[in-house]
């Protein structure tokens, strides 16, 4: 409780960089400057990289405190960090797999916002099936690596300083993969924005044309790529609870819009109650998960990703009924949200893959042939 009060006070009094808003897990191009400044402020006050252990400059906060922080940031309308990739994915990976030199080189710069990272995992032919990554990394006589391939669905690639790359350095299958650190301004790196169905471009394609990486840019050892990739999965789970805050607000907006457009009838009211119950369940399930312990791979945490993405999608889809004919308009925020809702059950693992994971990993059902 004390921690939460401290956080609230900090969020009330901390200087906010101009233009800072809650842009979600990853900043858009225009959000990066404010996001970096905000990350520096967080670092200064001990709120950066909450889950990092003290030896790497983190406060080693409990899961409950991490959750409380994420939630209070959502309430205050600010991001909880510059971007998810550096603090949540790359940091823990470097601590576990990286060399001391890599830790030395990168961790502090992640913590204080000097480096923005992006994730170079998915490919056109390797979406749900990461083990099928085809980007090639060929070792050169001098021990450096030459990388060639195409990545996709990379958010913030246009602003990032560094990327964490999954590439094939050996034979087929998971064992042939390695992970690398890629300076995004290296020669041969080309970033092309992907236009989404809502007209925005949160994601990019990244082309790697004979990019040369030093031997010390392999994370851990060659061949450890699959272990690195698996270690990053589920890292976003601790922030899922904070999503409930945003979804709660989106239901309020939905109800307000429906009333304004004369569409708030009994049927829609019932659907709003249903939606609110689902958000309430997400929230309470998340609190239970935190109470029960810290293992984000457990059953309670595992269901949250699915509850969250499907609830988001379904709430977003209600926007059409709430607007009536006004739903014909492109610029209606609820129309945009409905479109974005279509990505929720795909990106970060399709709902189909998530259900299979629940069945096989949580319930212990026999593996489906793949």
């Amino acid at each position: 409780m004390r921690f939460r009060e401290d956080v609230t006070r900090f969020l009330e009094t901390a200087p906010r960089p101009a233009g800072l808003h809650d842009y979600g897990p990853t900043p858009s191009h225009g959000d990066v400057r404010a996001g970096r400044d905000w990350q520096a402020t967080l670092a200064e006050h001990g709120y950066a990289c909450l889950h990092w252990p003290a030896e790497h400059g983190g406060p080693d906060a409990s899961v409950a405190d991490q959750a409380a922080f994420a939630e209070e940031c959502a309430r205050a309308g600010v991001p909880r960090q510059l971007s998810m990739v550096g603090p949540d994915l790359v940091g823990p990976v470097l601590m576990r797999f990286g060399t001391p030199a890599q830790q030395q080189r990168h961790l502090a710069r992640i913590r204080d916002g000097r480096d923005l990272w992006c994730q170079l995992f998915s490919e056109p032919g390797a979406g749900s099936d990461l083990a099928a990554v085809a980007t090639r990394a060929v070792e050169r006589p001098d021990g450096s690596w030459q990388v060639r391939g195409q990545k996709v669905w990379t958010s913030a690639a246009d602003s990032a300083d560094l990327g964490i790359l999954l590439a094939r350095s050996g034979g087929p299958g998971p064992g042939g993969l390695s992970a690398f650190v890629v300076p995004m301004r290296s020669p041969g790196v080309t970033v092309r924005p992907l236009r989404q169905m809502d007209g925005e471009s949160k994601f990019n394609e990244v082309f790697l044309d004979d990019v040369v990486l030093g031997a010390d840019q392999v994370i851990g050892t060659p061949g450890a790529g699959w272990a690195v990739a698996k270690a990053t999965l589920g890292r976003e789970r601790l922030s899922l609870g904070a999503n409930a805050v945003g979804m709660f607000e989106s239901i309020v907006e939905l109800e307000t819009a429906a009333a304004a457009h004369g569409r708030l009838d009994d049927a829609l009211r019932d659907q709003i109650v249903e939606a609110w119950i689902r958000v309430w369940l997400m929230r309470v399930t998340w609190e239970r998960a935190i109470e029960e312990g810290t293992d984000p791979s457990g059953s309670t945490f595992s269901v949250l990703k699915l509850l969250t993405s499907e609830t988001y999608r379904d709430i977003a889809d209600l926007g059409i009924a709430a607007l009536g004919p006004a739903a014909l308009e492109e610029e209606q925020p609820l129309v945009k949200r409905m479109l974005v809702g279509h990505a929720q059950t795909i990106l970060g693992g399709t709902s189909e893959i998530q259900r299979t994971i629940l069945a096989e990993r949580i319930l212990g059902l026999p593996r489906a042939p793949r």
Partner: protein
Amino acid sequence: MTDTLERAALRDVTRSVLADLATEQQVREHMDGDGFDRALWAAMAQVGLLGLAVPEELGGSGAGWTEQSVVHEELGRTLACVPFLATATLAAAALSASTDEARSRWLPGLAAGTTIVTVAAPAAGSGSWYDPPSGVSAESSGPAWRLAGRLRYVLDAAVADLFLVTADAGGTVGLFAVERADVASVEPVATSDRTRRVGHVVLHDSPAVMVGGPEAVLAAHGVGVTMLAAEQTGGAAACLERSVDHVRTRVQFGRPIGSFQAVQHHCANMLLRVESARSAARRAAQELDDPPGPDADPGVVSRLIAGSVCTEAYLACASTNVQLHGGTGFTWEHSAQLHVKRSRGSAVLLGQPAEHRRALRASGKVLVGL
């Protein structure tokens, strides 16, 4: 059987015109323009597709709504940018139920493709066909009328030559025709679905001709819902086909994703939706041509079920189509987004599924017989 053959021929003609002039690339060009493919419109007029619902003596072929529904289904597959729903269906139906003078004055041009006619929702202020008529007033000076009011979300307003408008003529509601030149202004709306445009129309002391009563508007709505249902069926079928094509060839985890049961069952559910929609849409169209009973509105059941079921089928299939395409389906470049937007627009254009079902309950014909 002859009918069936004739309809198959009609489908072939329509498909062949659309295959030439409404490829996805061509549709996208018109999306970036004013959303009206004049060449396609002329071609459709040329082969007689615009006058199917117009009697022979007025320049059409008097074929009937079942035939018209075939054209709608094909247009729904391709999302071709033509004011067919507004002109060939809604306006043709409204004029058919109007004065002889109005019929002979405008139906020939309509059938020839030279006059684009649209119909405004009776509730001008909201643009909803289920709200009570309001928003436009008519004042008479002799046989001449002058209209004032703002009509929101009027189909194809920017390209229409003639507007059919419901107005309150001192206590009674009438249907009026207003020429383009007599309209004060048309404000185009930036639509989410760029393949079908709407606009707001301002009338101010606008000369108008009274062409019919509220029954003409009701008739137009009934026909419109039925034909839109056919269009939605076509859209849903197109989504299913695109999904099937994709999952047969997209390989993940070493095999086509169409061999995964989760994907198979998504496709099977789409098929159930499409077949049900097709049944409802066909039956509703047949009952327009061949009313099943002597009462005032014999086709009300099939029409409202079609309006509800086909809308929901298209919404669901458009979303599943995105899901099965994964991230690619979420991009601007992929056709999946076009169906998401069309399906959402169609879901509010002439009434929402819940409104159709409420009207069905109010009809007193639920559970009356099978």
